[in-house]
């Protein structure tokens, strides 16, 4: 990640609409050359933050710096940053070439320079030869690429993307995720990417900023956010998880009547949630060390292609009335019998995978 692209410093940015806080004292540093994702459900404030960066929304107060330059009062057309809009926002009255050449023309480039840079941008997004197509003749994926080419043709140091893949079908979306990431790596850019799709965020980002209710909830690498969410909202929002109510009483953690082991030092007395990732559970034989064992009855066993999803109702006497979800990969457990509905089973969760959130 050594690059000369501008870094972005967001400090104390707040935006209200009446009594509603769209952004509440958000401070965030996007490193030079980094791919940072703003992740949150709809209405969380992530798009508002992106609009503040682009200059379309003026915050009530706060500072936004590109490099060392304060830009919070700068109008959008002077910010010199690329942006890909959710619905592409291609100009329908221009063809592909004119769309991509538009920012270059505004920058007073000569005809040949415009032509050259448009051809280069087209080849970067793998649309060589489509320059004369009309916008209406393009498929969704192609429009996406044109929008991207238009945003990078003037070689901006900062690229903003607002849910650019949300209109594409799943397969194309997954291909584009990898392609966008590669593109980011090959160009010298700091990228801020907005999405509500946690899997997309995990796939693409150097770091993820989880935003909810206008606040920055957690900032970290995909791995940190996934394995170590710092509250119940993030544990639930990112990845699959079962959240089971647990109690801490004088340094001991209880799930129902049973004491369980946790990976981190004990929390203060009170009510917490035990986070269980379905894929971390395994069928136990009772000999494992440092493992929490849960016994129960299989309520549902559902074939889902690459994995088998089990819904397990825990033994109410030991754990209270609750159920959890478990995911067994199909194929890797040859010789093992797939548990069926109604079967009594015992599943294990390693101590290192067991943690509490508030």
């Amino acid at each position, binding site marked *: 990640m050594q690059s000369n692209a501008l870094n972005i410093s967001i400090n104390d940015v707040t935006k209200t609409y009446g009594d509603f806080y769209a952004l509440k004292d958000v401070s965030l540093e996007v490193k030079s050359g980094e791919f940072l994702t703003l992740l949150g459900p709809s209405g969380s404030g992530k798009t508002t933050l992106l609009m503040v960066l*682009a*200059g*379309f929304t003026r915050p009530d107060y706060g500072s936004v710096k590109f490099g060392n330059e304060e830009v919070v009062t700068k*109008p*959008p*057309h*002077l*910010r*010199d*940053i*690329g*942006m890909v*809009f*959710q*619905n592409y*926002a*291609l*100009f*329908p*009255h221009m063809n592909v070439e004119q769309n991509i050449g*538009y*920012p270059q023309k*505004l*920058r007073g480039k000569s005809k040949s320079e415009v032509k050259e840079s448009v051809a280069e941008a087209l080849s970067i997004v793998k649309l060589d030869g489509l320059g004369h197509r009309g916008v209406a003749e393009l498929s969704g994926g192609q429009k996406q690429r044109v929008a991207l080419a*238009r945003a990078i043709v*003037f070689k901006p140091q900062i690229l903003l993307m607002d849910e650019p893949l949300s209109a594409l079908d799943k397969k194309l979306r997954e291909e584009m995720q990898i392609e966008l990431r590669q593109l980011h790596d090959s160009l010298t850019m700091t990228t801020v990417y907005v999405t509500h799709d946690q899997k997309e965020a995990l796939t693409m980002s150097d770091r993820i900023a989880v935003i909810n209710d206008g606040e920055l909830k957690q900032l970290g690498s995909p791995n940190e956010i996934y394995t170590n969410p710092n509250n119940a909202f993030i544990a639930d929002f990112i990845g699959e998880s079962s959240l089971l109510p647990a109690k801490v009483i004088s340094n001991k953690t209880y799930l129902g009547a049973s004491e369980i082991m946790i990976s981190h030092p004990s929390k203060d007395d009170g009510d917490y949630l035990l986070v269980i990732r379905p894929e971390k559970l395994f069928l136990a034989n009772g000999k494992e060390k440092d493992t929490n064992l849960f016994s129960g009855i299989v309520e549902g066993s559902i074939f889902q292609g690459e994995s088998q999803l089990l819904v397990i109702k825990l033994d109410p006497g030991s754990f209270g009335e609750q159920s959890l979800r478990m995911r067994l990969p199909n194929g890797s457990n040859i010789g093992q019998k797939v548990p069926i509905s109604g079967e009594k089973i015992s599943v294990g969760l390693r101590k290192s995978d067991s943690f509490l959130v508030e």
Partner: protein
Amino acid sequence: MALIDEHVNEAVLKNLDRKENFTLFGLTVPYLFLIFFLIIIPVGWLFYMSFIGRDGSYSFENYERMVTQKSYIRIFLTTFKISFLTTLICALLGYPLTYFMSQLSRKWAGICMIGVLIPFWTSLLVRTYAWLVLLQRKGLINNIAIDLGFISEPIKFVHNTSGTLIGMAHIMLPFLILPLYANMRAIDKDCLKAAANLGATPTRAFWTVFFPLSIPGLLAGLLIVFVICLGFYVTPAVLGGGKIIMAAMKISSNIELYFSWGAASALGVVLLVVTMLILYIASKLVSIDQIGGNK
């Protein structure tokens, strides 16, 4: 399963299709009658009568007159001049107003729209005479202007071209605003944001993105205004004070004064043909859908 090449339920389904088509046709029959009796027959009759001369025999004299008589040529020139100027004034007044409305929130735009529509729903005759009251020699505008000392002699607003244009532009304005507003509302606001993000100043973004995207709505509005103006009667008759004679007024006088149905019909046919010609040319420029204001 008696025949091998017959698929299951094929005949039944085909029968169902036929039945549905028949029902749908049955439903359209009343409207076909309506169109036939209210449009096809009257227009056909118009054509027929335009070829009947004064003495009751077939002749081209009604059309010949239009080419040879100076008064007719002047009437056509006046009709086109007034229509063109009215359209131009509507465009100059209507475009900025509609742009302003399209940038307001839905609530305020709705209030402005009511301001546009209330006069639109008021009787044409009432509005025309209201202009006469406002604009005449001793009318409200002249009196106020004299009282305030802007002018010493009343300005002659009515019974001439300017009065006609003021009245007609006022009456025609909604016809321009409505399709243009629908078009402007449909322009993707993100396109303007994109233009700004890519480095366009607000003025530049307007001329390179917004204006080109509003042209279909503008053309639709201009077309409607122009075509309606061509056949306009009441306003030029009242505010023109007999000095502005447009085609529709000549049709009226042909019937009322000269009882010449043939001459009146021929004028009607020419107006109809010109209108259709303009619509045809316009349909080459914009798709017909957009004339209704849809994108």
